[in-house]
C-alpha cells in the first residue's frame, strides 16, 4: 500500500507555481498572437481572390491537421537548420502555439462571419460602408458574440496542449512536475497535485466563461434576431 506523502510537493510548491506561471504565459501570448492572426487568415480564406484564399486555406488546414508536437519539434529543431536562428524553447513554444491556434481561430472566425446573414452585409453596403467598415462595425460585433463558446473551448484546448512544450525543456508546469517527480521520487503526489492545478485553472476558466456567456446573452437583445 502506498504511503501518501505530499510534504515534498508542498515544500516545492513555488517550483510548481513558476511552471504554472510559464504555462499561463505561453497560453496568453499564443492567444494574443493567435487570435489576430486567425482573423487575418479567416479573412484571407474568405477573400474573392483565389490565390489568397487558396494559400490561407492551405496554411489553416496544414496546421489543423499536423500534430502539434511535430510542429513544435519542427520549429525548435528543424527551422534553425534552414535559417540561422537559434530559438529558445520559449520563443519556439510561443511561435508554434500562436500559429497552431491561429489556424483553429481562423476557422472559428470564418464560421462566425459566415453565420451572419447576407442581408447584414447588404444593409451596410447600402448606406455606403466599405468592406472594412462593414466588417468592423456590423459583421464582427455580431459574429464574435456567436463565436464566444467556441473561442473558450479552443482556448482551453490550447492550454492543455501546451503541456507538450515540456518536451523542448521549457519550464512549464508539466516540465516542472517531471523534474520534481524525479527529484523527490514522489510521482504519484506530484502528478496528482499538478492534475488538480490544471483542473482548477481550467475549471475556473470555464466557470468564469459560463458567466461571461450568460452576461452577454442578457445584455444582447442583440445576438440573434
Amino acid at each position, binding site marked *: 500500500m502506498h504511503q501518501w506523502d505530499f510534504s515534498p510537493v508542498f515544500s516545492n510548491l513555488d517550483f510548481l507555481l513558476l511552471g504554472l506561471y510559464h504555462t499561463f504565459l505561453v497560453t496568453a501570448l499564443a492567444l494574443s498572437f493567435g487570435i489576430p492572426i486567425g482573423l487575418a487568415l479567416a479573412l484571407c480564406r474568405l477573400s474573392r481572390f483565389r490565390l489568397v484564399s487558396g494559400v490561407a486555406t492551405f496554411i489553416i488546414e496544414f496546421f489543423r491537421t499536423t500534430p502539434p508536437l511535430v510542429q513544435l519539434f519542427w520549429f525548435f529543431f528543424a527551422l534553425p537548420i534552414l535559417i540561422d536562428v537559434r530559438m529558445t524553447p520559449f520563443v519556439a513554444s510561443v511561435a508554434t502555439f500562436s500559429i497552431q491556434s491561429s489556424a483553429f481561430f481562423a476557422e472559428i472566425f470564418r464560421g462566425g462571419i459566415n453565420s451572419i446573414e447576407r*442581408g447584414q452585409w447588404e444593409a451596410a453596403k*447600402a*448606406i455606403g460602408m466599405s468592406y472594412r467598415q462593414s466588417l468592423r462595425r456590423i459583421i464582427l460585433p455580431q459574429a464574435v*458574440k456567436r463565436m464566444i463558446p467556441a473561442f473558450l473551448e479552443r482556448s482551453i484546448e490550447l492550454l492543455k496542449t501546451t503541456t507538450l512544450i515540456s518536451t523542448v525543456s521549457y519550464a512549464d508546469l508539466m516540465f516542472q512536475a517531471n523534474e520534481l517527480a524525479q527529484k523527490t521520487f514522489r510521482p504519484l503526489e506530484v502528478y496528482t497535485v499538478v492534475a488538480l492545478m490544471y483542473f482548477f485553472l481550467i475549471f475556473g476558466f470555464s466557470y468564469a466563461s459560463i458567466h461571461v456567456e450568460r452576461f452577454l446573452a442578457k445584455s444582447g437583445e*442583440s445576438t440573434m*434576431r
Partner: protein
Amino acid sequence: MSAEAVVEVRGLVKRFGDLEVLKGIDLKVREGETVVLLGVSGSGKSTLLRCINFMETPTEGRVFESGKLVGTEKNGRMVYRERELCALRTRIGMVFQHFNLFPHMTALQNVMEGQTTVLRESREAAEKNAIEQLRRVGLEDKAFEYPARLSGGQKQRVAIARALSMNPRVMLFDEVTSALDPELVGEVLKAIRQLADEGMTMIIVTHELGFAYHVADRVLFLDGGEIIEQGPPAEILVKPETRRAKEFLEGHSLFKLPD
C-alpha cells in the same frame, strides 16, 4: 418640376453567367418623381434596383446620377472604383424586403451608424438627425429599443429612417411590405407616401397595386428584363396595352380601383 434626371440608366444589361436578366433598360427618373416598377417574379425588378446603386455591377450600359456618369470608361469598358461606389450609395438610399436592421444596435444607433461611420459626422449631429428621421417615420419613442423588440412594421420604418439619415437624393424600395403581416403594411406605406408628398425622388418595387395607383407618377411594367409598358398609373393600371401586363393585373384580383 425640374427636368434634371436624378437617376438615368442607358442600355443597361445584366447577365448572371448565361442568364440575361436585364436586356437593355433605358430609364430616366426626374427630381421629385415617384416611379413604381411592376412585373412578375423573376422579371428583373430587384436586379434593376440593385444595378442603380451598384449592389450589382451592370454587365453593359451606363448609369448616371444627377447627370454624372458613374464610373469611368476605359477602352470601351466601364471601370468602377469601390470608393466612388461607396460614395454613390450614400446618395442612393435603399430599403429591403427583410429590413436588415443591425440587431446589435438600438433603433437610434441604426439610424446614426451611417452618419458617424460613413459620413464622419459628430455623434451629436448624427443623434439629432437620427431622432429627426425617426420622428419622420413616427418612431421617436422607440429610439432606444433593439430591433428584436420591434414589430415588422416598426422595423421597416426604422430601416427607412436609416436610409433617410444619409440625406439621399433618391430612395429605392424593394418590396418593402412583402414580408409584413397584412395589418402592418399600412403604416409602412403611409411613411413612403409621406415621403412622396415631401417631394422625395423614389423608385418603388411593390405588389400593392392600390398603393402604386395613388403614389406613382409613372408606372413601369417590366417583363423578361425589358420595360414593355410605361405611363401614368391611371393608364397602365386601368387599361394596359400589352397582354403580359393585362395578365399580371388580372392575377392581382385583390386590386380594386378606388372610385
